[in-house]
C-alpha cells in the first residue's frame, strides 16, 4: 500500500500588519509504484493507455516511420492486461488499433501487441493537423471504460494546429480535463510550444521537445515506462483556508511549474480541491499563498491546511501557520524553499515572455526579459538554464542581466529553452 507524507517549508512569522503567508508543501509517495508491481500482471481494466500519433502530411514518410517505431517502443512498455488503443491523427482522428470489431480498447497481450505493431506499419503521412479531434476521440475511447480510473494518453505532433480554430481546440481540451492525463511531445521545430504546453498543462501531463525523429522511440519508451510506474490515480490536493482568508494561489513548483489555482473544485466553503493526476514513487512540491486579515502581535492562526487525498480520503496533511511577531529577526527571514521556487517561477515567466517578445519582433522587450532570466539563473546557480540561455543570447554581464540577442539562434534552441523553462530544480531542505 502506498504511503504519503506531506511536509511544509515556510516562515510562519509575519510582521505587524503582515497578511501574506507563503509555504512550500512537499508531498512524497512511497510504495505507489509497488501498487502495480506487486500485482504482477496489471489487473485487466485497471489502467488504459491511448497513443495519439500525428500522421499529417508534414510528418513525411521518415517522420511517420519514426513515430511508428516510437509507438512500438511504447507498446513494449505497456504491462500485459492494460487496456490500450492507437489513434492516428491528421485533420481527423481514426483508431488504428484495435480493429473495429474488437471495440475501442483491448487488453495488452503478446497477441494484441503483435497485431498492433502490424497495424502501425500501415500508417501513412497525409492531411492537416487538428489536435482537438484527436483529443476528443481519445476521450470517447476512455469513456467506453468508465470503471477504469487510471487513464493516460501520449500525444505526438510535429506541426501547428492549423486544421481547426483555436476555439475548437480549446473546447476539445476543456472537454477532456479530468477525463484522462496526457503527456505531449513535439518533434522538430515546426510546432508551437505554447499551444502544446496548453494541452499538456490542462491534462496534467508533461511537454517536451524531441529534436529529431530518431529520438522518438527512446522518449516514448521512457514516457510509457513512467506512466506504467504510476500506481496511484485520482489524487488531489485539498487546501483549506480559514474564514475570511483569501487563497492567492496554489502552484505545483516541482518537478515542473504548474499553476493549479484555476483548477479548484469546491469541497466545502473553506476547502478547494486541485487534481494532481497519477503518482509513482515521487515527490512533488506545491507553493501555497494565503492572504489573511492581519491579527495583533503575538497571535497565531492556522493559515492553511494542505491535504493530499486519494479518492476523497486525506492520506497526508501539512499545516501552514501564521504568527505575528515584532521580532524583525524572525519576520524578515524568507524561507529558502519559498525563495527558491519564487525565483524559479519568475525565471520561467521571463523566459517565456522573452521568447514570445522575440518571436513578435519586440527585441528590446525580449532583451530585457531574457537579461533578467540570465540574472536569475546566474544568481540561483541554475547552470542548466544558463547553458540553455547562452544558446539564445550573448551574455555581457550575468550579474546585471546585460545581454544581447544572439544573431541566428536556432529555432530549436529557443523551443528547447521554452519547454525547459517550467522544469524546476528541486530545492533541498
Amino acid at each position: 500500500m502506498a504511503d504519503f507524507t506531506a511536509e511544509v517549508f515556510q516562515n510562519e512569522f509575519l510582521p505587524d500588519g503582515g497578511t501574506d503567508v507563503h509555504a512550500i508543501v512537499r508531498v512524497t509517495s512511497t510504495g505507489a509504484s509497488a501498487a502495480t508491481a506487486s500485482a504482477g500482471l496489471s489487473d485487466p481494466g485497471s489502467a488504459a493507455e491511448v497513443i495519439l500519433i500525428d500522421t499529417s502530411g508534414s510528418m513525411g514518410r521518415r517522420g511517420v516511420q519514426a513515430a511508428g517505431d516510437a509507438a512500438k517502443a511504447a507498446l513494449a512498455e505497456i504491462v500485459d492486461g492494460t487496456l490500450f488503443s492507437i489513434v492516428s491523427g491528421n485533420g481527423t482522428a481514426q483508431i488504428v488499433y484495435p480493429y473495429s470489431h474488437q471495440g475501442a480498447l483491448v487488453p495488452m497481450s503478446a497477441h494484441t501487441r503483435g497485431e498492433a505493431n502490424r497495424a502501425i506499419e500501415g500508417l501513412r503521412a497525409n492531411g492537416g493537423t487538428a489536435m482537438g479531434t484527436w483529443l476528443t476521440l481519445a476521450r470517447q475511447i476512455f469513456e467506453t471504460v468508465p470503471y477504469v480510473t487510471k487513464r493516460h494518453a501520449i500525444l505526438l505532433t510535429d506541426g501547428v494546429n492549423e486544421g481547426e480554430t483555436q476555439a475548437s481546440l480549446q473546447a476539445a481540451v476543456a472537454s477532456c480535463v479530468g477525463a484522462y492525463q496526457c503527456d505531449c511531445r513535439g518533434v522538430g521545430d515546426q510546432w508551437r510550444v505554447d499551444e502544446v504546453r496548453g494541452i499538456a498543462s490542462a491534462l496534467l501531463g508533461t511537454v517536451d521537445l524531441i529534436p529529431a525523429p530518431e529520438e522518438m522511440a527512446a522518449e516514448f519508451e521512457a514516457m510509457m515506462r513512467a506512466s506504467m510506474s504510476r500506481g496511484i490515480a485520482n489524487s488531489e490536493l485539498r487546501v483549506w483556508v480559514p474564514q475570511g482568508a483569501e487563497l492567492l494561489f496554489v502552484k505545483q513548483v516541482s518537478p515542473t511549474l504548474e499553476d493549479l489555482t484555476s483548477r479548484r473544485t469546491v469541497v466545502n466553503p473553506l476547502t478547494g480541491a486541485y487534481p494532481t493526476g497519477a503518482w509513482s514513487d515521487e515527490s512533488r512540491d506545491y507553493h501555497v499563498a494565503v492572504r489573511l486579515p492581519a491579527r495583533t502581535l503575538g497571535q497565531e492562526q492556522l493559515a492553511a491546511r494542505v491535504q493530499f487525498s486519494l479518492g476523497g480520503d486525506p492520506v497526508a496533511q501539512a499545516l501552514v501557520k501564521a504568527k505575528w511577531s515584532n521580532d524583525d529577526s524572525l519576520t524578515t527571514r524568507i524561507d529558502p524553499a519559498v525563495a527558491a521556487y519564487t525565483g524559479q517561477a519568475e525565471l520561467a515567466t521571463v523566459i517565456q515572455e522573452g521568447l514570445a517578445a522575440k518571436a513578435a519582433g519586440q527585441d528590446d522587450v525580449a532583451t530585457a526579459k531574457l537579461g533578467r532570466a540570465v540574472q536569475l539563473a546566474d544568481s540561483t546557480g541554475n547552470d542548466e538554464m544558463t547553458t540553455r540561455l547562452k544558446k539564445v543570447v550573448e551574455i555581457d554581464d550575468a550579474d546585471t542581466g546585460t545581454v544581447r540577442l544572439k544573431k541566428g539562434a536556432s529555432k530549436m534552441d529557443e523551443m528547447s529553452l521554452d519547454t525547459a523553462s517550467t522544469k524546476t530544480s528541486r530545492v533541498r531542505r
Partner: protein
Amino acid sequence: MTDIPTTGAPQAAPVPAADPATSPTGHPATHPAARPATGPATGLGTAVTASRDCPACGTANPAASSFCEECGADLVVAPRASAVVSGLPHAATPTGAATAPTDPDGAVLTSATPQTAPAGEESPLDVGWTGAVPSAAVVPADDEPTCQACGQGRIVDGYCDQCGTPPPNPRDHLVESPTTWVGGVCDIGRRHARNEDAMSLSASDGPGSRAVLVVCDGVSMATDSHIASLAAAQAARAALDQPFPKGAGTPDAWAAGAGRALTGAVTRANEAVAAAVEDVPNPPSCTLAAAVVEDDVIVAGNVGDSRVYWLPDAADEPATQLGRDDSFAQEQMAAGIPRLEAETGPHAHSITRWLGRDAPEDLTPHLTTMRATPGWLMVCSDGLWNYCSEAEDLRSLLHDASARLDDVTPTTVAQALVDFANEQGGRDNITVALARLAGRGSSTTTEATASAAPVEGDPTDG
C-alpha cells in the same frame, strides 16, 4: 485546555471575544445547540432524529453523516451537545432525579436514556429545576472542543477548523487565588508571542498568617526562557513553603533564618532551571522575585529586575520598593542618572544577574525584612513597572484601581493592574501578585510603627 479560573474582573484575553455576533462570517446563525453554554434551554429536543440537519446551512443529511454534504460543516458536535442538553429536562421530574452523564461520550450514544444519580447524590440544582444549566456535561468531549474565538469551529490538530485560531494557551493568562488575601494574575501582554513570565503563589487561610509569592521573568534574549521561569517559580515556592526555622524566637533570629531560607530558595530555583533546560549556547534564564509573609512579617528578595513593593495604606508611611534591581538601569541610577532616564535608556532592560545555566556565581538575593502595617505587598515583573516604576506612583495607581472595583480582592486588583499595563501597550509579559495585609501589629496599636520601616539587609553589598 480551557479551565482557566475566571474572575469577575475584565480579562485582557489575547483572543478576540467569542461573541458570535461580531465574528467575521457570512454564514447563517449557528444552530443554538452548537453553543450549549449560551443557547436557550428549550426547543432543542429534536436534534436526535433520523436525519442530521446541518447546523450551518440546514441541509438534511443521512443520520450517519459526520459532515454536511452541502457545506461540509461538522454534524457531530451540534447533535452531541444538544443530545445531552435535551436529556436534562426529562430528569427534572418532581422526584428530583438528577442527570449524571458522567461519560459525555456514553451520553451521546445513549442519549435516549438519561442516567440518574444514586440516591443521596442528586444535584441541588434539581430542586426547582427551570431548564438546562451549563455544566461539564454539555461541554463537548476533550477531543472535540469548540473554538473560543469564533464559537463555530472544532479544534482539529490544535486549530479551529473554521477560523484557524488555536485554543488559548493557558499560560497566556493565569489567575491564581490561593486564598482570600492573596492572589495574582500572569498575562502574556499585547506584544509578545509567548508568556515567559511565571508566577507561583501559596497561602494559608488566616489573613497575614503565611503566604509565599514568587514571580519569575524569562529573559527574552535567551531561547525557551518560559521553561526556565516556570521551573524557577515552582521550585522557589516549594522551597519557601517549608516553615522557617524559629531559632531563638527573636525578630533578628527570625530575619536571619528567613533570609537564609530565601537565599536557599533562589539556589533551589537555579538548580531547577539548570535541570529543566538543555545545555545550549544561549541557555534559558530568568529573574526571580519572592516575598514571604509569616505572621504579618515580610521577607522579600530578588535577583534580576522583577520587583517586590510595599504599598502601605497610610499616606504618611512611604511606599517603597523592597530590594533593588540587578540591572544596567539600576547601575546608572546608582551613578546619579535620574530614574526615568535610566529606565528608558537603551540598555535599561539589560539585567546584570539572573538564574540559569550561565548564571553568575553570586545569586544571593537583595533581602529585606519588615513588619507589615495595613497595606498591599506586591511582587511584579517589569511588564507592570515599565509603566509605573516609582513606588508612590504605583500606590496611587493601585488605590485608584481599587476604588473603581466593586469587589476588591487581591486577584481583582492584580487584574486591574494587568489591564492598566495592557492599556499602556502591554509591551512585555505582565505579572502582578498581591497579598492584602491587615497589619496585625498595627491593629493592636502597640509595636507596629516602631518596626514598620523596612530594614534592608543585603549581604552582597554590605
